[in-house]
């Protein structure tokens, strides 16, 4: 399985829009449910109470006391520790004591083994901290209500918002404490597992990806993509060898900062080879890289380079290159006035193909220390914990602990990549067989997904309900976070640094999108319900 960093990259503008949509949808849901609840329990006067509470919340926001929030944070923190939440370290310790036995030979380390080590540590940390936080955040407030301890808090000047915030911060802090200890141990474990001579494998590559990729077909005409060689994964397009076919990358903002310490420009690729005939299997396929400047009509072509199948390949181009006896500076002569660098790659071997995608070729900046990427990955886990904490705490203000835990788990489960993408397919009508009711009908009646439904009024109703459910799903799709945004460990285990601008900052933005609605939800739930255990 390939790692495709582009899949994880977020456009900051899209993130902002996502933020607005999430905040808007969640806030709408919270306010709507609160008003319905108030009308159901208090009749027509519920509308007035709703607006009073809304005003009350605004007032409360201006009267928030950091000291009270911190008191509730400390309470949560102390509670978790004294209720033995830190017992999770026992499991962690056991796993790490014996993990080395099952993870291969430590005398001869290969790059893939390093990936397994890093992946094991980060996955273990995630899967141990997430349940702890899930349990703490879902059971804290319901237990307070059940034992009526909350009576002694709400009869003090503590605002409901402060209770919710205090709980959230406290649980997140305990999660972060557990996370930090595990991360430190995990870091030492990784470094210790890898012999000194292989430590160079622990690195964080810093890629600069092309902003776009274009294709040219075998006739030399612009094309939407390369050749489809029947690979079921459509991620890559294939370039036919010894023709005019090529892939063109455009890199923006190319400057001195992208050069290594020797002043060279390094390109790394992970092209894939596809052979249309067997030939000499010991001989690799070859490609060449061409730097072009359309404005000056300049082109520099590298020597043919072998494709490293299933591995990364680094091509170094010196800053000064010679073309027909004239020396050119890559940055001055090949970077256009718009600070763009155009790079073309073509396949040299006749009737053979090389597969390329936008992320298959990037400029590799000087590597960063492993620990930098590692701790950014830990930040990704911390953000996931924060998200779960916010959702769990706000859910626990409305329902009992076990129900809140199931609800939070389901939201997290739906946020996982495959599930979220399946929701996308349902929402955008990419799944054959129609909506929920239509699918049920087809199943019961043994109708294939492509068969036409009989045209009668019953199906108008079915279609209508499917339309309503689909819109509800649209709402869910927007309010359920996409956990892949937070999957920073993937970068590190694949040897990449985690980019701030396209991964960490957008993730922070997505997380922040949940703060307002979750606090609002917690406030309303605690205000409009009678805090009696029932």
């Amino acid at each position, binding site marked *: 399985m390939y790692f495709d960093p582009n899949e994880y990259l977020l456009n900051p503008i899209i993130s902002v829009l996502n933020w607005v949509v999430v905040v808007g949808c969640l806030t709408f849901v919270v306010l709507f449910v609160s008003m319905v609840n108030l009308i159901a329990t208090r009749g027509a006067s519920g509308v007035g109470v709703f607006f009073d509470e809304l005003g009350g919340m605004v007032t*409360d926001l201006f009267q928030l006391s950091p000291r009270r929030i911190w008191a509730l944070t400390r309470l949560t923190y102390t509670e978790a520790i004294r209720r033995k939440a830190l017992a999770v370290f026992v499991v962690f310790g056991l796993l790490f004591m014996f993990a080395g036995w099952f993870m291969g030979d430590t005398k001869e380390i290969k790059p893939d083994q390093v990936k397994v080590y890093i992946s094991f540590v980060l996955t273990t940390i995630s899967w141990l901290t997430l349940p702890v936080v899930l349990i703490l955040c879902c059971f804290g407030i319901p237990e307070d209500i059940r034992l009526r301890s909350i*009576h002694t808090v709400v009869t003090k*000047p503590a605002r409901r918002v402060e209770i919710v915030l205090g709980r959230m911060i406290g649980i997140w802090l305990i999660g972060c404490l557990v996370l930090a200890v595990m991360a430190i141990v995990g870091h030492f474990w990784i470094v210790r597992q890898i012999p000194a001579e292989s430590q160079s494998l622990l690195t964080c590559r810093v890629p600069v990806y092309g902003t776009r990729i274009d294709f040219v077909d075998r006739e030399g005409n612009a094309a939407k993509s390369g050749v489809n060689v029947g690979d079921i994964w459509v991620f890559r397009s294939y370039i036919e060898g010894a023709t005019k076919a090529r892939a063109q990358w455009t890199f923006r903002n190319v400057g001195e900062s992208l050069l290594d310490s020797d002043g060279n420009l390094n390109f790394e690729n992970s092209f894939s080879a596809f052979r249309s005939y067997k030939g000499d299997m010991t001989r690799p396929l070859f490609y060449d890289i061409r730097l072009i400047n359309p404005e000056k009509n300049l082109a520099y072509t590298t020597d043919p380079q072998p494709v490293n199948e299933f591995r990364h390949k680094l091509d170094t181009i010196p800053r000064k290159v010679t073309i027909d006896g004239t020396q050119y500076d890559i940055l001055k002569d090949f970077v256009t006035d718009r600070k763009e660098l155009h790079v073309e790659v073509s396949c040299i071997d006749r009737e053979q193909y090389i597969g390329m995608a936008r992320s298959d070729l990037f400029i590799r900046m000087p590597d960063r220390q492993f620990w930098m990427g590692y701790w950014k990955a830990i930040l990704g886990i911390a953000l996931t914990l924060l998200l779960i904490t916010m959702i769990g705490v706000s859910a626990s203000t409305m329902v009992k602990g076990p129900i809140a835990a199931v609800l939070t788990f389901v939201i997290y489960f739906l946020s996982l990549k495959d599930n979220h993408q399946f929701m996308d397919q349902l929402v955008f009508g990419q799944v054959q067989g129609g909506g929920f009711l239509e699918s049920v009908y087809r199943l019961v009646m043994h109708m294939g997904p492509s068969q036409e439904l009989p045209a009668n009024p019953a199906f108008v109703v079915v279609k209508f309900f499917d339309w309503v459910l689909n819109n509800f799903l649209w709402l869910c799709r927007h309010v359920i976070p996409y956990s892949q945004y937070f999957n920073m460990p993937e970068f590190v285990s694949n040897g990449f640094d985690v980019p701030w601008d396209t991964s960490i900052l957008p993730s922070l933005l997505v997380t922040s999108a949940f703060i307002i609605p979750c606090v609002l939800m917690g406030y309303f739930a605690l205000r409009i319900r009678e805090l009696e255990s029932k």
Partner: protein
Amino acid sequence: MSQSETVIEIRNLSKVYRDFWGRPKVRALNALSLDIKKGEVFGLLGPNGSGKTTTLKLLLGLLFPTEGEVKILGKSAADVSKNERIGYLPEESYLYRFLNAYETLDFYGRLFDMTAAQRKERSEKLLDLVKLAPQSRRRQLKEYSKGMTRRIGVAQALINDPDLVMLDEPTSGLDPLGNRDMKDLILDLKAQGKTVLMCSHLLADVQDVCDRIAILYGGELKVMGRVDELLKAQDETQIRSSKLSEAAEKEIQEVLQRHGATNVKVDQPTASLEDLFLKTVQESRERPGHRNVTDNQSVS
């Protein structure tokens, strides 16, 4: 705030508990109206299920009224800012069992935005006031006896030096010594000019400390007034004196009968059981080993 100022104002307060489907299940309180003035100790009396605790919770905003209106210190029950001047002791001391006494008071002190120095000083003072033994103060509350939990509960209710103290069954779970301490504390609060509202079904406790009482039954107010007036037997006369001779007692009886008195009974007054218990404990402390057993059959 003047002495006659109303601290709690309840008008036509009703509470109906409903089931899951919103159907009325029980009317816990029915059209209750009363005022409580500043500086008085007011007792809410009634058997279990009469609506005492419900009234208290409605006042504190823990429950929402079905009908009626409540004003505490001039503010609505839903107004959080009123809590700045209120202290509340729940029926059970619903405290955080994993905290110790200092941590408990520190936590509640922070909720009142008190500084660290204020919290420390106030905590020590209150723990002394409720007579919680110094060696118990660092133990987690889950290790406390019911009486100790009650004491720390009282301390948390007074952490903010409140103007209005609401006590739900304050003497519940206390031994007679603790009971007396609690009553002394309530009288002390009254002496400081604070208003106390207490719920109890232990009549002797209420009688000892309350200025006024209200008796609830089935969620309805049945009796309300000053304790001394309510308890005064209008159709009887009591004469008390130091110990008299038998001849003097006989002579007094004759005089009373001459004036038409009926049901005349002349004997020695008895102390309450609480008084006897306290006296015994006091004597035991002063004279260890001393016994005063009057009923020999009860001693094996």
